[in-house]
């Protein structure tokens, strides 16, 4: 109570009649103004009178209040710039560490440390840190939050969030004089003035427990993912992983090669039904679909050496091919070249020497492997009957997988024809050149 007496003795008066009972030392004087314009004019007068320890309070930003109060421009933009710049650099470093240093990751052949791909993330990080710097910078520069601020002890001040415009001059200002300061504020057109006192109990000058509780709890909660990640990196677990969407992970449907009690054989796989064939899968032309020639004699079945005579009249084929004669013409060879270049060149190369991009890459990695040279005159492919070559394209051989699933039978025959063309072209002799052109090549 002695503080309160001292404050009153310093000139605080009680003319507004509802001064709180328990007051500490005088904090300052609060004056209310009617309009933002008057607030700006009053701030200018207070500034001109030489005060520095004062502030204006309004429900919304008021144009021109900063120069009227004589306060310097904020350095917040600089802080935001530094934040944004750090975000950009940090984003780049993060990607360099993740993608290029710690765990190099080849994405469509791009370099692991590849600036264009890193710009979007760096850009987003720059924005994130700029915004966070701005948000927390505003709090920090305004020394917020101050829920214990003595101005909140004034009932009148509650209207600052609605329609009240206030100037508060603090006692800490060197020019503060209870009477003169009050006269100045009233002279500037205030509609009310009021003395503001500190809370007598210094214990109240701290953040309420519940706010601190929320801050601590949310900070702790935000650390949980990091804690889990740290634990996972340093321990082993035999527990199955957590299923966040169990109905997506365990769908009520049959998958191939799974056990199931529903059927007597305990499998989910259902084989083909006897004496049926799926629509479009009737491959009754052995030559066309399998490259096999049936023989009536003792020799048994053998690879066909020629090409099919005609396309089978099957719904599996495109309408324009059904039943059409099979012609080894330029159109077929161009189709074969097109398919070969798409499906075969990655390993066998465009010239079929077996040195496509995959072997090239294997060599680049220190390995030594070539795909089969398809045009080597001493190699097996040149000697193969067409049917066997067709079968190899369909079902694969050694490391090579079968392409029956990707390439329909008629295109596989086009590839066979094109491979034969390549063999011929790569092993041509001088006599193969038309007589009219032979003279031009030595």
């Amino acid at each position, binding site marked *: 109570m002695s503080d309160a007496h001292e404050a009153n003795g310093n000139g605080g008066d009680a003319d507004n009649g509802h001064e709180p009972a328990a007051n500490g030392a005088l904090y300052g004087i609060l004056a209310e103004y009617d309009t933002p314009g008057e607030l700006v004019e009053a701030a200018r007068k207070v500034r001109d009178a030489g005060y520095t320890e004062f502030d204006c309070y309004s429900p919304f930003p008021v*144009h021109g209040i900063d120069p009227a109060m004589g306060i310097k421009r904020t350095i917040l933009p600089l802080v935001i710039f530094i934040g944004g710049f750090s975000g950009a650099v940090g984003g780049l470093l993060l990607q360099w560490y993740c993608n290029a240093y710690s765990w190099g990751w080849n994405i469509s052949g791009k370099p692991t440390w590849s600036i*264009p791909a890193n*710009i*979007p993330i760096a850009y987003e990080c720059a924005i994130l840190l700029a915004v966070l710097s701005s948000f927390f910078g505003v709090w920090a520069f305004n020394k917020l939050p101050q829920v214990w601020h003595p101005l909140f002890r004034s009932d009148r001040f509650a209207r600052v969030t609605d329609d009240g415009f206030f100037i508060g001059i603090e006692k800490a200002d060197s020019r503060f004089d209870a009477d003169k300061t009050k006269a100045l504020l009233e002279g500037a057109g205030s509609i009310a003035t009021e003395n503001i006192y500190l809370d007598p109990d210094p214990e109240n000058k701290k953040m309420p427990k519940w706010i601190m509780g929320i801050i601590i709890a949310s900070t702790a909660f935000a650390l949980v993912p990091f804690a889990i990640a740290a634990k996972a990196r340093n321990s082993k677990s035999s527990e199955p992983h957590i299923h966040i969407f169990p109905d997506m992970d365990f769908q009520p449907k049959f998958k191939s090669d799974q056990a199931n009690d529903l059927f007597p054989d305990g499998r989910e796989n259902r084989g083909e039904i006897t004496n049926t064939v799926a629509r479009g899968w009737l491959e009754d032309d052995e030559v066309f679909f399998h490259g096999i020639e049936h023989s009536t004699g003792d020799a048994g079945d053998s690879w066909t050496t020629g090409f099919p005579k005609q396309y089978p009249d099957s719904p599996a084929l495109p309408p324009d091919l059904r039943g059409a004669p099979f012609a080894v013409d330029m159109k077929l060879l161009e189709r074969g070249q097109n398919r070969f270049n798409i499906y075969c060149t990655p390993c066998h190369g465009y010239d079929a020497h077996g040195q496509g991009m995959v072997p090239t890459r294997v060599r680049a990695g220190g390995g030594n492997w070539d795909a089969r040279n398809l045009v080597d005159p001493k190699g097996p492919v040149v000697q193969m009957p067409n049917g066997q070559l067709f079968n190899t394209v369909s079902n694969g051989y050694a490391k090579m997988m079968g392409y029956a699933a990707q390439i329909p039978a008629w295109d596989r025959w086009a590839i066979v024809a094109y491979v034969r063309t390549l063999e011929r072209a790569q092993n041509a002799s001088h006599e193969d050149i038309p007589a009219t052109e032979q003279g031009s090549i030595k």
Partner: protein
Amino acid sequence: MSLTKNLHPDEKYKAGKLGTTMTLVGAAIVASMGILSIILGAAHGDHFKRFLYAYVIGWSFAVSLSIGMLWLVLLHHLTRSRWSTVVRRIAEAMTGAFPILWLAGLGFILPVLFGYQDLYFWANPAAKADPVIAHKLSWLSPSFFALRYVIYGAVFIAISSYFAKKSREQDESGDPKISVTLRRAAGPGMILFAFTTYLTWLDILMTLAPRWYSTIFGVTFWGSGNIGAFAALGLIVLWLQRNGRLVHSINEEHYHDIGKWMFAFTFFWAYTAFSQFMLQWYGNMPDETNWYKYRMFGDWQWVTIAMLVGYWAFPFVFLMSRWTKRIVPSLVFFAVWQLVFHWLDMYWNAMPQYDWTTISHGSTTVNAGPLAGPIAMHHVGFTPVDITCWLVFIGFFLMGTGRGLKGNLIPVKDPTLGLSLAHEQL
């Protein structure tokens, strides 16, 4: 400290003879530089191909300024802007350049229409052999191209003259309802404006590289044009003030906003230009990367680097500061700087397509058009006609703008004028 202000009693807001002066200066530039350009173009000995490329670049430069200011006028009404009321009449004057620019553009449209084959490769019979271009030829035929050119011009001229005319009407009648009418018109106007702008750049500049694909080209171009448009606005306002007009009405608060728009579009341009580049670089499809191949390697890479540093990094860093935009000399420096680089942007978009390559298959020789063949054969090949054609179109732009600078240079009875005069940055 009040929220509105009245027009200063001593304010000189009548254009007087200034507009005529600008038109005459523009006409003098057009006449002198035009003759010089034709002589230089003929001396080039390539059937005016270089001349026409430079001509398209100059035309694009000038038109993009008017388009940028038409956008400002539409945006002003659409959002009930306050700061821009004091400069709106000048922006309207800059959109007044549309008719003369569209007439001047016939300089390259008519040759294409009447069978000139060396400007746009799609107009060349050799283009039919290219399967990628062949399926675009239904859109890219000379007659349809010329028809679209007329439609785009009609749309731009209709929108801009409507807004300018109504604005002048309000000067006479002071009817606040005109502001409401224009606000209602600005919405559909903006949509129409967006489509027309996008398609104009697709047709005029992008089809110089007819094999290429990009869906963001028109947007990037518009962003780039707006940098130049706001720079030009700032310079014209300064020129008017140097001649004693509007000295009390337009102050550093308004320059600050012009600078902010320049800054914003400097970044916007970089954002969209990089988006285009990054997606095509990442996708790595030959039809798309081919366009960048000739710009990232060989001679042109230096122009590309100059663009990155000069059109984005340098102005971006400095225009970020509040003071760069508020101190008029520094704003003027960046306005001139960005106008030069805006022209370079046009140059960079169009001129790499100048070199056409012929490829031999045995005895037959095929014209492969732009962006083909070895990179080393494609040179920047900077020539004087590039500059003189640019100056010709600066002249055309000044002629058109001068036409619009007449009567009141400020919308004296606009209801928001008071707010605009008192405008202050927070």
